[in-house]
């Protein structure tokens, strides 16, 4: 297992993280004793087969779900013990979340969907409007700003979802298979956007099962049966040399069986 790079700042740390669900008479362990560090500014990808627990891990790291046991630290602060106010402040200001199923609010326009977290965070109307307009421009969906999610394409919806995640300038973006429901072309656009914002020092943690998507990452964390099966440092390979990255990932995954 590749260990932490001492030059990077730890942003999120998981210690003995466990999550189990009751399925009738049996307990299902979606996360089992996970110990992990995620670094500031990194584009981290979590991979694993279907049902391996990668989405659960993302929910736990982002504070969207409660732990069964263990601890999660964000910049040294333990978030699993947060009060409701603290956790909502955390969700509002520290993180942005992008879902595979997009999850825009169906009765809000794209503009409103993007702007809404700004109002929740208590920002001023002018500031929110300016930021929302800029983000919509950045995502190239400013012309669709007044449309409802059902009136635009899946790719445009997902771009709005990324804009929504960015509105409060979070320290980290969590993305759960953001290209999973999109065409290859739309998926590439989304990945380009994520790569671009990562280049602007935005930390990103993304769950994917797509090797091409994973090539964009600095680190790859492989999850199997709710446990960390291995971590691959991709930053040592040139971002331009996608083929080399793809091969490394392939080899890494093959080596892990």
């Amino acid at each position, binding site marked *: 297992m590749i260990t932490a790079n001492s030059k990077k700042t730890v942003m999120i740390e998981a210690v003995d993280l466990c999550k189990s669900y009751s399925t009738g008479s049996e307990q299902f362990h979606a996360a089992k004793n996970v110990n992990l560090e995620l670094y500031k500014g990194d584009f981290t990808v979590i991979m694993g087969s279907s049902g391996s627990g990668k989405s659960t891990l993302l*929910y736990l790291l982002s504070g*969207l*779900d*409660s732990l069964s046991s263990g601890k999660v630290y964000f910049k040294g602060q333990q978030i699993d013990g947060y009060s*409701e*106010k603290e956790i*909502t*402040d*955390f*969700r*509002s*200001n520290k993180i942005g*979340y992008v*879902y595979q*199923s997009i*999850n*825009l*609010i*169906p*009765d*809000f*326009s794209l503009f*409103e969907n993007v*702007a*809404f*977290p700004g*109002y*929740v*965070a208590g920002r001023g*109307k002018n500031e*929110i409007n300016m930021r929302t307009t800029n983000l919509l421009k950045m995502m190239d969906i400013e012309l669709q700003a*007044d449309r*409802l999610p*059902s*009136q635009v394409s899946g790719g445009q919806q997902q771009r709005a979802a990324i804009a*929504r995640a960015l509105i*409060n300038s979070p320290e980290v973006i969590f993305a759960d298979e953001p290209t999973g429901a999109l065409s290859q072309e739309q998926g590439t656009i989304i990945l380009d956007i994520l790569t671009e914002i990562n280049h602007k020092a935005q930390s990103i943690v993304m769950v994917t099962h797509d090797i091409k998507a994973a090539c964009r990452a600095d680190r790859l964390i492989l999850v199997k049966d709710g446990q960390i099966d291995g971590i691959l440092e991709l930053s040592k390979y040139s971002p331009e040399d996608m083929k080399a990255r793809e091969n490394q990932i392939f080899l890494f995954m093959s080596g892990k069986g």
Partner: protein
Amino acid sequence: MYPVWKLCWSNLKNKKVQNAFMAIIIMLSALLLSTAVLVINNTNRVYEDMHTKVNGAHQILRFENGIHDPYKVNQWWAQQEGVTTSEVMRYRYLSSMVHEGEEIPNVDLFMMDTPNMPFTVDKLLFVQGEDRQDPEPGTAWIPTSLAYSNNIQVGDQIEFKTDKQTFQLLVAGVVVDISYCSPFATSGRIWMNDQDYTTHLSTLQGNDKYMTEMRFDDYSQNRAYWGNFEKFLGTPFLESVKDFESISSYYMIANQVISFIMIFIAIVMISIALYTLGFTISDAIISSYKTIGIIKSVGLSSRKIIAGYVTQYTLIAFISVVPGILISYYFSNKIVSSSMAYLNTSSSNMNIHFSGIEIWIGFAVITVIALSALLFSYKAHSVKPAQAVRYGMSEKDSSKLSRRLDTGKSKLLQFGRLPIEFLIGLRGVRKNIRGSLLIILISALSTSVLVFGFMFIFSITSIHQTIAKWGYDSSDLSIRIDNPDKITYEQLHGEVLSDNRVKNFSLYGDANAVLPISKEHAADSDGDSMGILLTVADGNYDEIGYENVKGHNPIKDNEITIGVNVARKFNINVGDPLDIYIEGEKYTLTVTGIYQAIANMSNTGRITAEAVRKVNPKFGASLNTIFINLQDGVSVNQFVNEMHKKYGNALWTASQASLVDEVFSQAVTILILPMSLMALLFIAVTFIIIYSICRINMKKQSRTYGIYKSIGMTSQQIRLSITAEILVVSCIGAVIGIPFGLLGLPPLLNFVLMDYGIVEVPLIMNGVGIIGMILLSILIACLGSWFASRVVKSASPRILTVE
């Protein structure tokens, strides 16, 4: 059949809360309907059983003016086949009774010289005391109504005041005297020993009065008897007649009102249940649109899907209706035994009897629910598998929803204009139109019923404010000279009525009169004449506060005002002439006004003392009560206490408020329990339905709530937004419900009370109370949604977005 059961079972199992709530609403509807019917049926049955058991009178003739010979009349009736008559019983009136040092105000006592037992008509049933041939000297039997309302027991001493003396009797029996122990009655028969009667009452000024009672084997034939009777007399019967309808009316009135309100509320509740059922089924179809589409795509027919829903709700209805009807037994028993308490003896059968009607009610409720389920689930028929899988709803509904959600239309709903929680709530109203409409409807009904219910109970408890509109005077107090040896009218006038604190006064009494029935009205009537009680005033009717629904009070000696039921029966209007016999003499008076009065079911009239003096110049002895109004600011209670101190037993004085309380406290006692119970039921149903709708809606919106949470909204903010949505719609509902409660429902009550002589129930609009009820209705709705949204608090964004 298997797929139908499977579908039905799956719906029952997966939507336990919704199904349980629907079951509760259906159960409450069945409970109210069944209670109302049981109360009506059993009130009649208990009364009729008792009436048969005691050989109750159908008609009571009173001879008070010496016009007809009571013995001859009694003999004539006794000779008629199919008629049982009582003996001729002599009596005197007294209007004062003291128990344990406290005067019982507002009573008309028939002091009876008890004839030999057993009675042939109106047999007395002993609830307390020894059943004897007649009361022992020095003792009396009193009716249950007087005993229960004044807490008088056997062995207690009661004191009576005549104009000469006071005398005491020991209560030796408390009896059910069916014609004179009804609720709200202010009259009662005191059964005395012949020796006591002769000693204390025969010697009083004036003559003995007589009473005879008749029971018909077939009461519907009494008109034919009366035709022959008046031929025998050669004139109409010119004394007073009390008939079965008026004897029984007071037993029925409270339960009629209660049953009417219950049936109304039950119908409202069933309508709500049906609408909620429609909403629930529609929602189930919409939320299972994909599933239904898939089921259909694998070949299950729409008919079987519909059969699944119909089976589900028929089962729920069946499970709910049975306990509803069984519980109704308990409530109806309470209501009937409370209103019929004066007929209760150890041997009387007061228990509620079930009849086939209750089974039919249950069957009808189940059928209505099943048919509604069939109607609403028919929507499943139109589910197109392709559209279902694509949109999760029909294409038409999908485009409708998109149109509705087009956000650019309302500037108010734009971000930044309102607090975020309120804004989301308002947007929820627009999005969830069907649910919002249902909540508006329920809030409107709940507001109207609560407002009306409060207004009705408040009006009854504060009846002294509207007493004139119930047919009573509205003076401040009444005075009667009980001992003329100690104080004469002249002295009273000099010492009391001339007091500068007295604003005005009028002398008041009554007289019996007979209205001959013309041929055109004869078909609707039981006889050729109708006896009415006349109020006679020597003074100004306006000053003592008598009111009319039309016209004005009588001023001249040729004027009369009549009760609404007299006007209706004789088709008389203001300005019409009216033939009337007073003390046997015929007059033609002009009707100057029509009034409503609960007493004697508005079968009464009001004339001036001058009108009676035209026949009987000495008329005046019966003007024994003086109504007094005091100057503004003078304390009535202080004045009354002063009179008590100064004149003691010689003068009977009571404030109007105490007299009114005496009569209507029974009404309040009887009405308050069922009315409060119904209000509580309505509150519970409103809460349950709103809770249920919110739960349904929240399930649909759980993903959105998950998103809200994931972007940093607190559970509190989300719950507030849900409650804000309900607050808005329930306020709209309340605004619609207020006029309906204030103006729409009272006419229904007028309709029920019309036969009892009240055409316009005097309701008091108490602003604070009404606002309280409106707020209560809104609060219930908000609490329903607040409790329903508890799930948001505990669920993580992951659970909400995945669900």
